[in-house]
C-alpha cells in the first residue's frame, strides 16, 4: 500500500487539475451568445443546487435544517447581506436544536 504522503499528493494534484483545466483552455471571453448565456446561468444554477436540499439535510434534523434554510431565504429576500444571512441561518439552527 502506498504511503500517506503519496495519497495526499495524488488527491491534491487531481483536485488542482480539475480546477485548473478550464483556466488553461479558456483564456478569452466567450462570445457565442448562447454559450455566453449558458455560462451566465451556471453560477446561479450551481449555487442554488448546492444550497438545496443539502443545507436542509446538513443538520441531521429535517426541522432545524428547514428552519435554517427558510431563515436564510427570508433574510436574503429582505435585503440582508452575506453575514446577516449566514448569521440568521446559524441562529435559527441553534435555537431549533436547543428546543428540539
Amino acid at each position: 500500500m502506498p504511503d500517506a504522503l503519496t495519497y495526499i499528493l495524488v488527491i491534491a494534484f487531481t483536485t488542482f487539475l480539475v480546477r485548473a483545466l478550464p483556466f488553461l483552455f479558456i483564456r478569452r471571453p466567450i462570445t457565442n451568445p448562447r454559450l455566453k448565456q449558458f455560462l451566465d446561468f451556471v453560477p446561479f444554477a450551481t449555487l442554488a443546487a448546492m444550497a438545496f436540499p443539502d443545507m436542509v439535510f446538513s443538520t441531521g434534523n429535517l426541522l432545524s435544517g428547514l428552519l435554517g434554510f427558510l431563515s436564510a431565504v427570508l433574510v436574503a429576500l429582505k435585503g440582508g447581506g452575506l453575514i446577516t444571512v449566514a448569521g440568521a441561518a446559524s441562529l435559527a439552527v441553534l435555537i431549533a436544536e436547543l428546543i428540539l
Partner: protein
Amino acid sequence: MKTEFQQGMKDGLPVALGYLAVSFTLGIAARRAGLTGLQAAFASLITNTSAGQFAGFTAMAAGVSLLETAVAQVVVNLRYVLMSVGLTQKVRRDASLLQRLLIAFDVTDELFALGISREGALDPRYYYGMMAVTIPNWALGTFLGTVFGALLPDILLKAVGVALYAMFIAVVVPPAKKSRPVLLVCLSAMGLSLLLHYLPFTKDLSSGLRVAIAALLVAGAAAFVFPLQKEDDHA
C-alpha cells in the same frame, strides 16, 4: 481606501471562520485514515476541498488504489469545472496565466460564490486576499480536528455548517429578485437537485456530482429556453 487584497481578506473572513469549524470534522476523518495532525494539515493546505478530502481520506483508510482514488477525486470535484469555467469569464482580461492558475488552486464553493458575485471584473489580488485568510484556517482546523478529535460541540458544527450554505443563498437571492430567468434557473436547479437526491442511481452519487449534473442541465436548458439577455441583465 482598501486595496483589492485587503478587501478580499475582509470579505473572506466570515468564510475563514466557517472553515475553521468545518475542517474540524475533516480532521476527524483524517485521524480515522491514520494521518497525523501535520499530514492532515498539509493535505488541507494544498487541497482545500471538503468533499474531495473526505473521499480521499476514506479511500486511504480503505487502502483503495491510487488510480481509483484519483478517479474518485475527479468525480467528486466535477462541479469545480463549472465554477472554474465561470471564473475564467469573470477574471480581469489582463490576468496572466500564473494569476489564473493561482485562482484555480483555490476554487472552493464559498470563494467561488464570493468571487462571482463581485461587482465588475474579478481582480486576482482580491481572490488572493480571500485565500490568505481562508487557507490557513482550513489547515489549522484540520490539524486541530485530527489531534483533538471532536473538540467543538456537535450543535456548533451544525450551526456553522448551515452558515456556509446560507452564503450561497445570500449570493443568489438579490439577482434572482431582479431577473425572472435567474429566479427560474435557481428554482429549477433546486428542484432538480432535490429530485436527484431521491431518484434511483443518482441518489447514490456524491452530492458534488449531483450538483454538477443539476447545474449543467438547468443552465443548459435555460440558455436555449430564454431569449438572449442583454449584456448586463443578469451578470
